[in-house]
């Protein structure tokens, strides 16, 4: 869902940019004094600048409401399942791999050797959450399983020649 929104937003803004650049390139054939252009378009820039700042502020506030590494607000009073994950070249050890739909899991992720990624893919192979597995540290994030099926775990940080084969599975019933 997030990926789709970001994809369309990117496409929209890039097309908008292309139209503006194309329009300016097309209008460059005409010649006009620069002074009135500066006066007029500096005014427009102020409005454009303010709008951009406001847009960024709105997006910032909206996107910072809930962070994936904080316990989600909807699980207050509900038991969160802690899962310990240890990555190594080239696999994962999880102390629990079977869950039920609706379970909220706290993944505590570390590694025995080099830095790895811990990326969770839903049954449709959409990335639904991730963190880094770093030596000497434990990174944490929360995930609520909202559909049944087999979830794949892929390494998302380059860790050596078998990086692309470093994966495991979790089953949600």
């Amino acid at each position, binding site marked *: 869902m997030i990926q789709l929104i970001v*994809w369309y937003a990117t496409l929209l803004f890039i097309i908008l940019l292309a139209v503006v650049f194309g329009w*300016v390139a097309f209008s460059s054939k005409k010649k006009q004094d620069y002074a009135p252009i500066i006066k007029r378009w500096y005014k427009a820039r102020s409005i454009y600048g303010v709008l951009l700042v406001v847009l960024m502020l709105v997006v*910032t506030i909206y996107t910072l409401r809930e962070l994936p590494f904080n316990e989600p607000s909807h699980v207050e009073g509900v038991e969160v399942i802690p899962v310990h994950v240890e990555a190594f070249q080239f696999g994962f050890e999880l102390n629990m791999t079977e869950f039920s739909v609706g379970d909220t899991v706290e993944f505590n992720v570390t590694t025995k050797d*080099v830095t790895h990624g811990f990326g969770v893919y839903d049954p449709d192979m*959409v990335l639904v959450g*991730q963190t880094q597995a770093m030596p000497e540290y434990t990174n944490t994030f929360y995930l609520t399983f909202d559909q049944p099926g087999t979830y794949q775990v*892929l390494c998302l940080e380059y860790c050596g020649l078998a*990086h692309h084969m470093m994966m495991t599975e979790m089953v949600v019933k």
Partner: protein
Amino acid sequence: MRMEKGKSTIIQQLIIAAMMIILMMGFGVLMLLQQGGVVDFGPAAFYQFLTIHGTGMIGGAVLAATAIMWYFLNKYVKLSLSVLKLNIVLFVLGVVMIIVGVFAFEFSGSWTFLYPLPAISSGAWGTAGALTYLIGLQLVGLGLLIVLLDAGRAIIQKYGSLGKGLGWDVITGKKREQDAPPAAVVASTMVVIVDTAALLSGTIVIFMNIIHVINPAFTFDPLLAKNLTFAFGHILANSTIYMAVIAVYEILSRSTGRPWKSNKAFLIAWTMSTLFTMIVYPHHLLQDTVMPTWALIVGQVLSFANGLPVLVITAYGALMIVYKSGIKWRMGSSLIFLSMFGWTAGVIPAILDSAIMVNHVMHNTKWVPGHFHMYMGLGVIAMLFGFMYYLVQNDQSIRPNQLDRFAFCLYTLSILGVSFSFLTSGAISTPRKFATHFEQWQAPAIFGGVSGIFLMIAIGIFIIYFIRYMVNRNKDFSVEKEIA
């Protein structure tokens, strides 16, 4: 007829960079075709290509951007040509070591070489490979550092301090706007500051890795190492566009006959860029939850803010200066104008991905190379070739022809093809840096690989133009010598 001082060195430097870039594109195409299931040369070769592609592209971009900065800054302050030449020597030496490290000793730790990967390869490469690669990288950095120090020296000598080079005395009202330093000086000052910080971080982390490779009993903090690595990599990669954008200010201004003045808004924007470029790198660590939460939030907020100077000042300025200017479009100015589109377009997916909740499901997918292939491929590379065409347009017998114009269109479409193939892959959750892909991820990779082949053809045409120019130039010099 004599070339202006340093121009021939600059052209040589640009040609080395351009040759490197097209070669690295070749590795990029091979990787995409392997991911698409079209060819299969095995994971070991894939990750060697990955390492050389990333290192070579950044190295080539840095070399080209340094040439652009040096060329224009030298018009305002007195720079040392010997230092520039020494940089090329160190660069070539470093690149040779990197090539030996990657292909002879099979080092494939990627150009981001996250500690402790260089020392723990699971048998893929040994001490010699890691050391040759890391020392080679350090030599390239050393070359850049001496150019920066020379630039900093020259700016301080003429303007009094780096702060004055950024126009702080104009911002604070101590000096009039019309006496502000030119755009090329302001941008160069910013680059001197941020790149020196980047190279300092890089040197520390490279040396720590070198010691760890030699003696694994010596360890250091992985989180600190990661911070230093991304401070180095992020700032260095970003600074290439801040060096190369000097070509935009100078070339668009000359091509339109309109001044690109350093006014207060412009100077404030560059001070913002100086600060933000150095401190936004934590957006590379948004999935390291052990980082202080405030640092991650600051990483997001400042990444958003970092888009403002380019979106509101530089790109807007480029549009204004071209608007109804009666400009006669030539290859140089066309590429330069296109580069501003590439830069701003590349900023959009980057800004969106720096939101923590977005990054949580897009970090280390192919969305990330999607943004920087647009930013670097359609931004920095367009600036590089725009500058090359501009540099020779007034003193040569070979005029760009229909083939060059065809190459311009082919370049634009094909780099967009490459970038959008990555973005599409990222949107469907395809991981980056994977030697093979599941079947459902292969189609965009094949599209990207084919686009990359067309991109190489376009870049090849650009390069052939300069090789023809150099050959003609040498002939002219021979004739001049005979007449003399």
